[in-house]
């Protein structure tokens, strides 16, 4: 679906973790027309004070009820304004925006990796993958038990593995420590979270083939031809796709505010070429 301005209505709002909110909005056009990985650009109520919209990953989308959810942490006046919304309040959203995760049709096992609020970036993909009959393992990392995303908010079919920095629940350490245990099982991996986590995942993914000694038998995926970097086809063949974050202005590709540096040496717009990128499209060491 092409983007459009949609008038949505708040259905429910709750603080699922300290300072973290899950809000659902009645937005049939977005619930049916979006894909996992895409986002909405949401207008705040006070244009004179807050001049920018706020981008949110579409956290879940239910075409039957016409409801989408967003999940965020209160970090300033904009997000605090959202927490004060009441059921029935109207909210103006621009979307769906950006490009979605691309899952290879032959991938049976999907590894989702989320760091903190990065859950909001990959949560929708869990639903989409289960619907398509794939198996999903979700690796989730947070600072401590109080920041751990409730398992009750994930589908039962998802294998949920947790790591915390202080060891208060699950593995003590980084969630990336656990990735090697799954790299043979996973056909593809999809991640969202802090930039250092994504960079670590990208390093792991780059060495995966050698470590596993993968010798592809039979016909090569894609018949050996090289697909244009950044194309949906090329991304579908990538082992790791990441959902990136950047301060954003227009969210439609006009202002060039939200770029990250691409591996090709050209800035890539998170809102337009992303927010999902194949890991190899990103210049992880550029310092941008």
């Amino acid at each position, binding site marked *: 679906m092409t983007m*459009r*301005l949609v008038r949505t209505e708040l259905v429910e709002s709750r603080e699922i973790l300290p300072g973290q909110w899950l809000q659902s909005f009645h937005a049939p056009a977005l619930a049916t027309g979006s894909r996992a990985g895409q986002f909405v650009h949401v207008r705040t109520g006070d244009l004179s004070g807050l*001049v*920018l919209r706020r981008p949110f990953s579409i956290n879940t989308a239910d075409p039957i009820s016409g409801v989408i959810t967003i999940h965020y942490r209160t970090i300033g006046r904009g997000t605090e304004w959202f927490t004060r919304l009441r059921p029935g309040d109207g909210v103006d959203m621009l979307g769906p925006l950006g490009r979605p995760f691309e899952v290879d049709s032959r991938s049976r096992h999907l590894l989702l990796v989320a760091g903190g609020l990065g859950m909001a970036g990959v949560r929708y993909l869990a639903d989409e993958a289960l619907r398509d009959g794939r198996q999903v393992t979700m690796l989730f990392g947070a600072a401590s038990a109080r920041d751990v995303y409730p398992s009750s908010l994930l589908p039962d079919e998802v294998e949920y593995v947790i790591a915390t920095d202080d060891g208060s629940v699950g593995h003590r350490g980084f969630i990336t420590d656990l990735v090697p245990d799954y790299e043979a099982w996973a056909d593809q991996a999809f991640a969202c979270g802090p930039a250092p986590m994504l960079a670590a995942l990208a390093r792991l993914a780059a060495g995966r083939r050698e470590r596993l000694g993968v010798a592809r038998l039979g016909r090569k995926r894609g018949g050996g031809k090289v697909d244009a970097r950044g194309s949906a086809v090329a991304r579908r063949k990538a082992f790791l796709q990441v959902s990136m974050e*950047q301060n954003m202005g227009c969210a*439609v590709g*006009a202002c060039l505010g*939200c*770029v990250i540096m691409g591996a090709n040496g050209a*800035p890539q717009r998170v809102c337009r070429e992303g927010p999902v990128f194949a890991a190899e499209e990103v210049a992880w060491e550029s310092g941008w």
Partner: protein
Amino acid sequence: MIGGGPSAGPSAPGATRRRPVVEPAVALESSIAPVDVDLSVDLGRGLVLANPILVASGTFGYGIEYGDVVEVDRLGAICCKGTTLKPRIGNITPRVTETPGGMLNSIGLQNPGVDAVIEKYAKTWTGWKTAVIVNVAGESVGDYVEVVRRLDGVPGIAGIELNISCPNVGKGGLQFAIDAEAAGSVTAAVRRATDLPLLVKLSPNVADVRPIARAIADAGADALTAVNTLSGIAVAPSRTKPLLGNIYGGLSGPAIKPVALRIVYEVAQIVDIPVVAIGGITELGDVLDYLAVGAVAVQVGTAIFADPTLPVRLVDELAGECRRRGLSTYADLIGTALPRKPGAPSAKGVEYRP
């Protein structure tokens, strides 16, 4: 719409500015039939726009990014992203952040270069009713001249807006806008290189903009745009460094409106070419304020990010306002707040400055 035909617009020098407003009696309102309001504006050299609501450079890309969300054909004109001779990758990130009543940006003129811009977009622009004004930036007079030469005569390009006031690039840009002589010479050089309508965008980052505006007008610019962003910084949440990758950014949005209004007010009184106002427009009242201090047209920028449909709505609201007041042209709204007598203290003084 563009080119040809005598100007019916309000910008013929001296003709309509400072015209006293005709305040129709309220009782008249209901008795007059809805008039067809003339919103057209002549920015000089045949650049006649259907209405005075433009979209600002850097906020509307190349006109295609908003897709179906915006009725592009209803805009007065589109000022496209700043264009340079060679491609530029722009500044290190973060590039944007919100500030009280505004935002800071330091894109750093990321663009694919003039040749790529022409190749990718000019054909699309040819099919539009809306004029496309290409914003041009450079590091030297030679750069500006060469970019403009390449744009000259390309179908689909209605005019040039000279960006001599970008605060976000180290070399060039701003240096031309803070010195009257430099501003005059780059304007004159570009003027010699093209017959395209030429707007020059002023910087607010100067003590007194008037000598600069005068030099630009004397050098042959057809119109002035006032103003570019104000130089500013923000601090990273960690408080260990500035927030923006480029340290400095340009402040835009409602926060800068009083400053931009003051500059339009000053400039409109001392030049005979049209002034296009820009700075923090979010509603019709802002448009009317800028017209009152002498602008003949306005550009909407930052507010587009919150409400992409705002510029088109302002066109309708401006026409509605004229109808409500029984005006057949919005020209009657221009210059109403300017001093009646030339040489009034406010026109020459800087007394109020700290």
